[in-house]
């Protein structure tokens, strides 16, 4: 049973560019949440998708958007990248209350 998978593992972008990160949930899970983990900090909630709709959103600007597909996989898009967007982006999937995390995508914005 595959766990949560994310791609790519690492990414380097420059300021102003746009990036798309991908997540495949654990088998049987229907909910996907995205988190940003800056260096030395705990993960911060970005948003959550359920039934292909954004169900909750954290304190992140509209530059951060997402999508969930019928197979429950999800994408996180970030537009107009800033240096401060450099972080580890984590995807977590769940069916009920317990979330299981993927390995993350490390984004570096130069």
């Amino acid at each position: 049973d595959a766990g949560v998978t994310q791609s790519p593992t690492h990414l380097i972008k420059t300021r102003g560019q746009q990036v798309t990160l991908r997540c495949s949930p654990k088998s049987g899970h229907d909910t996907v949440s995205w988190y940003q983990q800056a260096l030395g900090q705990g993960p911060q909630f970005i948003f959550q998708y359920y039934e292909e709709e954004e169900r909750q959103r954290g304190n992140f600007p509209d530059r951060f958007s997402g999508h969930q597909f019928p197979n429950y996989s999800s994408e996180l898009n970030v537009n107009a990248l800033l240096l401060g967007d450099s972080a580890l982006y984590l995807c977590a999937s769940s069916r009920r209350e317990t979330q299981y995390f993927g390995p993350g995508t490390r984004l570096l914005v130069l």
Partner: protein
Amino acid sequence: AQSVSQHNHHVILSEAASLELGCNYSYGGTVNLFWYVQYPGQHLQLLLKYFSGDPLVKGIKGFEAEFIKSKFSFNLRKPSVQWSDTAEYFCAVNARLGRDDKIIFGKGTRLHILP
């Protein structure tokens, strides 16, 4: 708004020492509580969770945590640590409001075990 506070940013212990990592949360309603661990180079893993029932919860690798509702605390303990417990530990909480399962994390405690 919910928040989670972890008391120590860095903890250094020798092998076989006892461990207690503090965690307090602020939320007046019913909560689910979690401890996650991130070993060097690995992804976040669930260590243990509390939803209801016995406030003393046992997790993997000999860890346990006690939920004290009156103190809004969920401290993590292990009687005798091993070098392999070197990792970063995160306390997390989510409010049980309908289908709200957004998790709020603490800033983490980096634990270093000396061999």
